[in-house]
């Protein structure tokens, strides 16, 4: 017996088609090239049982993977710009953003319906403590400005302020709010705010969506760059049967 998915749930093929044809999400195809899968992908055949289905086990497949963005050589334009301006050539970003991917299928083919989650089940922290974040919040800047302003002359000591900012940047661990949520909580913004709400609407989100509002320009499930990479990898390795004759480069 096959595992039951919602009747209106899209197939992998339909979702790939939507992702490719909708200008609001098509960029995930280009960004997919920057994605790197971890060295192990697990494929779990799951015999599902529940209280009301004890004597009728339902089979499903679960793909478990982790992936991260590869910045080199995609950010080299920044290095070129720096050279042009004869400023210091900054090293490319090496922040380690890595996400769990859980893709559940009825059977191993592109015509299968699915359930998906990218990233952890934790809640997004919109404003982590300033001590963790290098980016200076507006209110922090205002407070520090006050501290660095002479009460009598009302003159701002810019050098002192810059030193405070520099010192803080050295001690804070995360670049910005997105970086904190990614590294600390395992959350990817694109999936948390755009993908998961729409998957939840179609009842094909693995786990729950903390963020309920669906994006205005996206009315159908799409795949993010990490999931696309996993799917095309599985097709290339003949694990996922391309029974919908999807074009694979």
């Amino acid at each position, binding site marked *: 017996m096959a595992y039951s998915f919602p009747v209106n749930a899209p197939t992998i093929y339909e979702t790939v088609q939507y992702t490719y044809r909708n200008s609001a999400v098509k960029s995930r195809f280009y960004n997919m090239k920057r994605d790197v899968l971890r060295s*192990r*992908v697990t494929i779990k055949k*799951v015999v599902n049982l529940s209280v009301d289905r004890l004597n009728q*086990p339902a089979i499903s497949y679960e793909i478990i993977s982790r992936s991260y963005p590869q910045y*080199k050589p995609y950010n080299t334009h920044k290095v070129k710009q720096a050279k042009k301006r004869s400023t210091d050539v900054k090293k490319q970003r090496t922040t380690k953003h890595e996400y769990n991917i859980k893709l559940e299928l009825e059977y191993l083919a592109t015509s299968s319906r699915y359930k998906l989650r990218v990233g952890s*089940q*934790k*809640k997004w922290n919109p404003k982590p403590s300033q001590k963790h974040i290098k980016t200076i919040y507006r209110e922090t800047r205002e407070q520090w400005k006050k501290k660095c302003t002479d009460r009598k002359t009302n003159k701002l000591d810019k050098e002192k302020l810059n030193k405070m900012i520099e010192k803080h940047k050295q001690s804070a661990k995360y670049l910005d709010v997105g970086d904190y949520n990614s590294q600390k909580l395992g959350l990817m913004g694109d999936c948390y705010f755009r993908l998961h709400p729409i998957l939840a609407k179609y009842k094909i989100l693995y786990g729950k969506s903390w963020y309920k509002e669906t994006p205005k320009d996206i009315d159908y499930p799409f795949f993010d760059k990490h999931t696309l990479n996993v799917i095309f990898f599985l097709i*290339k390795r003949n694990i996922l049967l391309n029974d919908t004759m999807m074009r694979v480069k």
Partner: protein
Amino acid sequence: MSDDYEKLLDDTDIEINFEEVIRFEITEDSYLETYIDSDKYVYYYVTETGDEKTIEFEYNESFTNLLTISKEYLDKVNKVKLSYIKELNNG
């Protein structure tokens, strides 16, 4: 994370690991799972704050410390596991 972070892996370097499990769905956020080819049992649940937790144990272990798992569920899963293995062995 290992040191190969910056290394772009070739697809062929990626290892594919196949597993077969019996999963008993307890609630939307929790299940009990056992591996067909081992004595390992895993209890998975998501906390209110979204933390995913797993407790691994063996069937013969004392279950008294695993307060949230009912012995009844465990026995049900084990029974299905044994009959599934028997079915596999019979081809």
